[in-house]
């Protein structure tokens, strides 16, 4: 019997070995490296010089604009996404026949699986001088600038992350027990009070999943502010690219990266806490 157990352990170890090696070499060790770099100094020629100092963290204020933009625009973008996504998710889950539901759901997912780069640059067309502003000029409203504003970045965010917000809300609405809705109507509730008293509270776990997911992804966003913000609306992601690839201030960039990860973890923890409070222990899967 002992040999059977030993063989079982050996097989399990062998099955897990490649993934473990990959996770350690390309996730755990790199993170340790980033933490080590973040307490170091910038070498005179750029890059990293060994040291132990918290100077990089004390200096975070130097990139306060990027932090400020990200901390305001990421949650605001997630909320704007929510406002557009909720009616769509509601419609798909409760108002459409199952056959059409699948097709419409696929139509929601497809843009998410196509290149964000391509979808974002399409907006450079539409918002750029030859797009909507040219049209407005034609009908007598000259000199409108749409591109390279916080507004265009917000639009890009809503556009890019909408599918990711619709899906979890759809899942929680679709799992909702229809009998509860009937019971509510039988007991004389108006559609509005059924929605406010039954549907909305039961969909909150999905809403929280969507908000936390989109917010976390937005914290590290780079493409949308670069292409639609034209270097005027700076996110943390832009600061990181600048620090690593242009000014080669690796220790400072590492400190910002560590701060970003800590912020993401905080968002997740808060979201989990809120979800647990509003829903008992209901979980919403994304895939």
């Amino acid at each position: 019997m002992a040999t059977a157990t030993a063989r079982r352990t050996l097989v399990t170890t062998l099955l897990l070995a490649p993934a473990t090696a990959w996770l350690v070499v390309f996730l755990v060790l790199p993170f340790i490296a980033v933490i080590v770099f973040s307490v170091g100094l910038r070498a005179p020629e750029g890059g990293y010089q060994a040291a132990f100092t918290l100077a990089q963290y004390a200096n975070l204020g130097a990139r306060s604009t990027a932090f400020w933009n990200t901390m305001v625009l990421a949650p605001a973008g997630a909320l704007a996404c929510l406002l557009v996504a909720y009616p769509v998710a509601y419609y798909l889950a409760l108002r459409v026949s199952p056959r059409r539901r699948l097709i419409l759901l696929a139509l929601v997912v497809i843009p998410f699986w196509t290149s964000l780069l391509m979808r974002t640059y399409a907006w450079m067309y539409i918002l750029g001088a030859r797009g909507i502003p040219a049209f407005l000029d034609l009908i007598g409203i000259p000199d409108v600038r749409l591109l390279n504003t916080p507004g265009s970045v917000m639009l890009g965010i809503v556009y890019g992350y909408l599918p990711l917000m619709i899906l979890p809300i759809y899942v929680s609405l679709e799992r909702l027990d229809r009998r509860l809705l009937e019971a509510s109507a039988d007991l004389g509730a108006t559609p509005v009070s059924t929605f406010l008293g039954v549907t909305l509270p039961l969909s909150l776990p999905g809403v929280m999943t969507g908000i936390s997911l989109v917010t976390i992804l937005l914290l590290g966003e780079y493409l949308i502010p670069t292409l639609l913000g034209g270097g005027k609306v700076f996110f943390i992601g832009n600061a990181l690219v600048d620090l690593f690839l242009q000014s080669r201030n690796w220790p400072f960039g590492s400190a910002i990266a560590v701060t970003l990860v800590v912020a993401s973890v905080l968002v997740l923890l808060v979201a989990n806490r809120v979800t647990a409070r509003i829903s008992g222990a209901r979980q919403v899967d994304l895939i």
Partner: protein
Amino acid sequence: MRAFVIAVFGFLYLPIALVVLFSFNAGRNASEIVGFSFRWYGTALSNPFLVEALQNTLIVASTSAVLAAVFGTSAALGLARVGPRTRAVFDALFGAAIVVPGVVIGIATLVALVALFAAVNPLLASAWPGPNPPRLGLGYSSIIAAHGLFSMALVTMIVRARLGSLSRDLVEASSDLYATPLTTFRSIVLPQIFPAILAGLLLAFTFSFDDFIIAFFVAGAQTTLPIYIFASIRRGVTPEINAIATIVLIASVAMVLVAQALLRRRS
């Protein structure tokens, strides 16, 4: 509400439709349609830089997706055999690989690899007998490694979901009939989880194919298609880019549809 939903679908598809439309535009101008033409597809496919970037992307995406499919499946099978504590550790690490922003993954990989190269390259140089010692550097392998990380997490998640819904009766029946574990795996388990593995592989390929930010950090001198497109856009959008974007769009939609169909198929 119906009108609102229709408007949202319009919002989702209008920009994509414009890119496709302008890729067939005969003129160079982005604001007026002159006529229908395939000329920009010809221009795109005869641009050596673009073709090289496309080749690089295909190499990176297929290698990282295949590695992720093999190791991810193996990890999913392994995780079905371990206790809850080990599983929780792996769950946390795989979760991190998916949730940590791409910028940070890119930076971490860059920092770690550069530190590694700084340590290994002098050793290689001193141990090398000939005049031109090999030097490790950023390139294909660093992009494949970084993409393989989240792709593997993705495959593991999908295959584990499938393993969870696998009927245990067949597995038990198989071992009652004295099949070896390997035979049971080959003839019972593998056929059932194979669609999930393939779906994971296709999604991993699509993710890797589309990724810009991680590759931007760890590509070194290599150019992938998203990096090339990004650089071109900053010089000004050309119809050529619309053509290549349309090709990529059709390819990734096809791939995702196949993956979805595989995931939905119940055996």
